[in-house]
């Protein structure tokens, strides 16, 4: 636009036509407005986060539907106000990097979509709001503070036999598991469950009636040990997925389990803690002390994941799909 104004100005100068000066001035003013308006639009912006939703991975265990998993798509709802300036959110700043985002605007609400990325803690600290309104000549942006922290959990799958069981017979039949001390997790309501065991907050959030599942603490609980070597960057994700899947199998079957996870400092037995611990563990973290010889040991080093129980050992390559890896270690668990 500035080039156009300059061209018209040049012709005005060389042809003595006063109108061309006026045209050049008005085009130049368009450039000024086109640069100024976006800058002011983003400067006066005070968006408010109204909430967020997730889509993507469907966890096998119903109680995990409210969790965020690796690769999920998050949608943030921002309230921009009634007389909203025309802006778009084009990037988000996390605790470590900046990630691109895309936004659509309906009325005074902007929906910002982003991918959750890999497992871990996703802390959104700021969002980049851009505007080129009203003329699209200039583009201005501003980083607006944002406070949102979610734990991105690893994806998991149920072992084949547990899936079959879950298909034929509802997970966690109430008759098989009585009231106990240890919290195993949440599951869908089944006929015969006591209404006192319904966990209303989760039920309200997920839209499905969920009940608290507990089990007697047992000395013969399955013990899992996860080890992630410092050089296990490539194999760590598969190892974590395998560990999560093995533990989920126990939860689905109502069998008590405990898992030592690097970085968690102790063995954890509750599914919620297991999944969170697996979300936050990283290669090179120190694992808690081992408990027994019968423990199923999942260790990652280099590009290989080794699953061992006693003398039995299976080695899986890091590039193997999770479902295939579960099938390969099926008889060892």
């Amino acid at each position: 636009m500035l080039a156009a104004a300059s061209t018209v100005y040049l012709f005005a100068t060389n042809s003595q036509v006063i109108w061309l000066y006026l045209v050049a001035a008005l085009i130049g003013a368009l450039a000024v407005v086109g640069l100024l308006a976006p800058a002011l639009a983003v400067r006066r912006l005070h968006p408010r986060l109204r909430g967020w939703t997730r889509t993507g991975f469907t966890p096998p265990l119903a109680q995990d539907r409210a969790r965020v998993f690796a690769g999920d798509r998050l949608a943030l709802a921002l309230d921009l106000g009634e007389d909203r300036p025309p802006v778009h959110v084009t990037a988000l700043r996390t605790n470590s990097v900046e990630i691109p985002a895309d936004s659509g605007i309906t009325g005074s609400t902007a929906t910002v979509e982003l991918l959750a990325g890999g497992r871990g803690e996703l802390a959104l600290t700021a969002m980049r709001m851009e505007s080129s309104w009203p003329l699209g000549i200039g583009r201005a942006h501003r980083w607006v503070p944002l406070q949102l922290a979610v734990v991105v959990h690893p994806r998991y799958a149920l072992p084949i036999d547990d899936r079959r069981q879950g298909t034929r017979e509802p997970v966690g039949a109430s008759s098989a598991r009585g009231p106990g001390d240890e919290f195993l997790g949440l599951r869908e309501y089944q006929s015969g469950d006591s209404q006192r065991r319904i966990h209303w907050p989760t039920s309200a959030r997920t839209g499905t009636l969920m009940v608290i599942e507990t089990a007697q603490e047992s000395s013969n609980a399955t013990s899992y040990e996860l080890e992630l070597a410092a050089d296990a960057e490539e194999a760590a994700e598969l190892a974590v997925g395998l560990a999560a899947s093995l533990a989920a199998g126990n939860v689905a079957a109502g069998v008590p389990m405990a898992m030592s996870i690097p970085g968690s400092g102790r063995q954890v037995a509750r599914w919620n803690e297991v999944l969170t611990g697996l979300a936050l563990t990283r290669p090179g973290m120190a694992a808690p002390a081992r408990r027994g010889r019968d423990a199923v040991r999942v260790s990652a080093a280099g590009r290989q994941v080794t699953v061992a129980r006693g003398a039995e050992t299976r080695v899986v390559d890091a590039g193997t799909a999770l479902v295939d890896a579960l099938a390969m270690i099926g008889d060892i668990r």
Partner: protein
Amino acid sequence: MRRWTRGARIPEESLRGRIAVLAAAGVACTAMGVTAGGTITALVSLAIVVIGHRVSWRGRLRPRTATGQAILGGLIALCLAYLVSDLTLGVFGGSLPQAKFSVLALAVTSFDLKSRRNLFTHVWHSAVILYVGALFAWNPYFLPFVLAWAACLFAFMYFTRQDQDGASHSRVARWGTAWLAIGGLLFVGIPHFAGRPIAVPLLVSIPMGDSAGPEVLPAVLPLVGGQPGPFNEQSINLRIRGRLGDEVMFRVRSPAAAYWRGYTLQAYSGQAWSRLPRPARSIPPISVGLSERDEGPLIGTLPQSFFIERPVASDVLVAYPVRELYFPARGLVLVEGGTVKSPVPLRRGINYSAVSAVRDLSPQHLRQAGPIDTDLHAQDLRLPAELPARVATLAGNVTAGRPTEYDRVESITNYLSAHYRYSLDTPRLPANADAVDQFLFNDHVGFCEQFASALAVMLRSQGIPSRLVVGYSTGDRDSFTGSFTVRAHDAHAWVEVLFPGVGWVPFDASPGFVDLPGNHLPAHWLLSDLSPQLALTSLGGAPGGALGAGAGLLAVVVLAAAVLVWRHSRLMARSAEVRAYLWAQRWLLWMRLPARTPATTPAAHLAALGAVAPAVARALGPLVFTLEQASFAGHAMGHGSSLPVFLAAARHRLPRHRLGAGAADP
């Protein structure tokens, strides 16, 4: 992600934006029709433009066909043929062929406006037409046209964004007001420099041949005493003087006032002035570097553009001394003395431009002029033998004690303007009386010719070479447009006096006129010196013009190629996933399926597409997933080559022959 999809081939969906473009075209055509003429052409073209816009809107999603492009190209070629033939040969009358070509081309191109870029080009095309109209706009009535066109440009740019981003009306009103205010301030604040007329080819209207037509036109000046005649035989009879009307003879765009000079008269007979044969040389239509001998260095230039309103004779009116001339005719002759002769009379509609020298005519500089070579300028000192001696005596008395030539000239000029009265009602000159003697000693009243004659004769009697000059005074200046309107009653006569080392310097003894009618120095700027190199065409004259045009064309081509390469490199710099997604979007457009708009995320677009064509949406899904992985997670997840898969799947599920309105999914 908005930046990915607003490419050159994406159809513009904003109907309001298209209407704004159409309105801009309408404003420009109307403005040109009102000011420059060619109303019928403008109105017909405008009607075609309306139809073209409607066709473009309805077919915006349809792919371009080779046949359609060939037809459009052929029509543009026809328009070009009209331009060239009318510009050079005047086949269709030669009246503003450039303007008519612009509106015709606008009409043709209006049938192929698909993308925003097409529309943007259309707006600038209308700006060219507005420019042509502005060239002929001499009063503030053109202001609404300019504001309306600019408002259309604003509306186009705004609507095409508003339909994507949305905003409240009050916010738009605020910025619209700010735009007008800033534009006004810029208009007042930006310097209005004077440069050389690089736009000459656009100004040239009626090309003229090498020979004069049969029509008989009045002399360059409507002075009753003017005697039209063959070359070198024109004269002015001082015995008679008629009434001059108020009709506009011509208009001049010039950054400074000047006397618009016609020709000079050297021989004084006592009752008339006449021309003397002078050496002459032919000059091309575009002539630069014109200069006369014995002239000092110039201190600036004065560009002028003339617009003839009424027929005048073949003397090219221009401020003296001319240095560059851009004239729409061959066969020009530059006569020694600075007069430029056209081979044919100047008709209404003729435009031409000139650049004249601005010399240092300060008294200090003129006082330093060298001695006069009386032998060399004998004919400019010649006086009739019958001239009464008291004329020379009076001149001697007036100049007594004046040491320099300039002081003597100034003293006589001041004496005449102070002691004699200006009036068009002068007594009739007796049959045998000398006109100057009668004016000086009997009548004491006269008009410009008497004053100029008296000044010239008195100077010659003192040994100072001088000659009579006829032309027009500055005329009425429009303070807003900065142009001069010259009427018939502005016809004027004055004197040029030779100052060795400086040249011929104009002096005007008529009361009420400027003391020193020399050229004034306008505002000057750097690019003024570069603009002669930008001459767009040569009408058969200066070889430098063709060279400059070729260089300019080459520069434009190189620039355009650089822009294309830059844009292509930007596209290629994007990731393979992005490019694949863009290609998929283009495919959707070709299939008349909804493409993603800037305000829609790829996921949202996928969902919307699923409602229209679920099978295609399913095929596009992996591509969107790949795109998001590549964009958000920084890596692809096994779908790096999704485009061929998508195209194959989509084509299989959506045969082209089944694509109709709405493109329902099978």
